[in-house]
């Protein structure tokens, strides 16, 4: 038989190491930004809608706290921080990943997924990071603003440890959300239409929207257990928020770190399984 025609040694200057990825991502971000800004009107409209949404969320929050001081054990400013954290985290996910995952089912349906599979680069990276949706990016800043406002109103004293732990657990929350989204996206390979998947995502993320305490009574306790320890979507906003404004719980911090690693690994495996299935069924 024949020997492999190896060209691992590329001519001078070529780089196929891991360093490609951040460079590639940088370029992708830049190109998509330039493109979006050229459609300025559309960009502004999308931003206005997001601002409106934050406004509505805050209106809801204000209305509720006008009549009560405590919701599920969260005081007014703490709850405000929670809202800001949720908004920022959702902003990160929507900016970086949502559009790409939505696109995946179209790629499967049209068969254009094939072209992404041909590229000598990790498919998960290519598929989930292809586009950056810059019009939602301001959400992250707005969420940050709300969080800062909540801390200010609270008269919070700067605590470096808290900030570091918050950033870390926030990143974990993003990672876990990403893992969930990846699993749902993978289902596109088997299910024809995309609509239900996005509904599923929205509903999952709706669970993450509220403090965990609302589940900790009566019949809902089973839900609390399921969505904290089995499908840990409840950790995503709760843990970072608690880290910042409530008593530090080392157990939870350790737990979310483990969950992050496990969920990223499992979701990647599942995604690759889906791709394999796509490839054996495709024509």
């Amino acid at each position, binding site marked *: 038989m024949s020997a492999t025609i190896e060209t691992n040694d590329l001519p001078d*200057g070529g780089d196929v190491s891991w360093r490609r990825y951040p460079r590639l991502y940088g370029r992708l971000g830049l190109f998509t930004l330039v493109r979006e800004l050229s459609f300025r009107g559309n960009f502004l409209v999308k931003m206005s809608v997001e601002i409106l949404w934050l406004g509505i969320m805050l209106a809801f929050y204000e209305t509720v706290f006008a009549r009560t001081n405590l919701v599920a054990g969260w005081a007014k400013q703490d709850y405000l921080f929670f809202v800001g954290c949720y908004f920022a985290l959702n902003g990160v996910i929507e900016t970086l990943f949502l559009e790409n995952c939505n696109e995946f089912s179209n790629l499967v349906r049209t068969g254009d997924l094939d072209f992404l599979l*041909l590229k000598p680069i990790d498919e998960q990276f290519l598929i989930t990071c292809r586009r950056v949706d810059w019009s939602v990016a301001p959400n992250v800043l707005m969420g940050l603003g709300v969080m800062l406002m909540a801390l200010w109103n609270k008269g919070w004293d700067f605590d470096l440890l808290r900030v570091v732990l918050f950033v870390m657990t926030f990143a974990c929350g993003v990672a876990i959300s990403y893992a969930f989204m990846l699993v749902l996206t993978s289902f596109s390979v088997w299910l024809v239409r995309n609509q239900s998947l996005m509904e599923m995502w929205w509903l999952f993320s709706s669970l993450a929207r509220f403090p965990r305490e609302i589940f900790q009574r009566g019949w809902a306790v089973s839900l609390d257990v399921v969505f904290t320890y089995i499908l840990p979507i409840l950790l995503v906003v709760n843990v970072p928020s608690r880290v910042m404004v409530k008593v530090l719980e080392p157990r939870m911090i350790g737990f979310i770190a483990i969950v992050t690693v496990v969920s990223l690994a499992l979701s990647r495996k599942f995604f690759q399984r889906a791709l394999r299935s796509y490839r054996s069924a495709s024509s």
Partner: protein
Amino acid sequence: MAPIIEVTGLSKTYRVFRKKDGLKGAVQGLFKREYKMVEAVGDVSFTIEPGEFVAFLGPNGAGKTTTLKMLSGLIYPSRGDARVLGYTPWERKDAFRRQFSLVMGQKNQLWWDLPAADSFELHKEIYGIPERQFRETLDELTSLLGVGDLTRQAVRELSLGERMKMELIAALLHRPKVLLLDEPTIGLDVVAQVAIQKCLRDYHKRHNVTVLLTSHYMRDIEALCRRVLVITHGKLVYDGELAGIRETFGQEKILKIEFPADHPPPDLSPYGTVHGVEGPTVELRVDRPRVAETLSGVLSRYAIVDVSVQDPPLEQLITKVFEQGKATV
């Protein structure tokens, strides 16, 4: 020299689910689905040497695309083996993927709403193309295809022909050793077709890339390849020189002669095989060498409204190839 592509007994069979019509069928479909097995590619074997320009010929649905996709590693075969550049394609090693390209007609690999130039930059990163080589190749290709000033336009704004040219550039930027093309000129106007054919020919001569081209247009094949593999119903039925097919099987020409509509057309059977009569038009099959004398005979005897001389459709040629049994492989 070792062959660059080796295929042995490659096969691919699918399960196709049957969709029943109507409301009742849809409800049944909620609970149970019937399926049947379809063999898209059956026991195909061939080898290709480096630098060859080979055509894959066959009617629609013959299995050409499926074979190409298996050689690209996009599909797992059901049986059989293939080696491209020494790699097993469906293992999809990065080193393998860096050395070949697949281009599919009417399909778009480039980022849709970015200018082609941006897509090329991204390609450069993905394939790890050194800057100097990137610039050289890009210049060479844009001038070969004449699209230098279009690269800054968003891909979605380009015409189909221009888009295919960009696709081709993207496919060749990383100087692949193997180029797989699936119906690259389908749906394009003649000018674009010729431009792409010319580019392929020039590039092939210059860089000695191995090319596997599928098409059901004889024109593409004739312009570019000498060796032809014919596939029908998933089976390889001919592997040899292009000239061989034409000589052996393309002996007849079709004459479509339209007579004035006032009375039924005359009987042309003395001149050749009458293949069909439709209204005032008679379709006559005549051996190639006798076309001129047949035409002059008919024209001198009858008044004619219109006449056309055509090659028999490719499908018919292929069917004949198939009927006459397999040629050597």
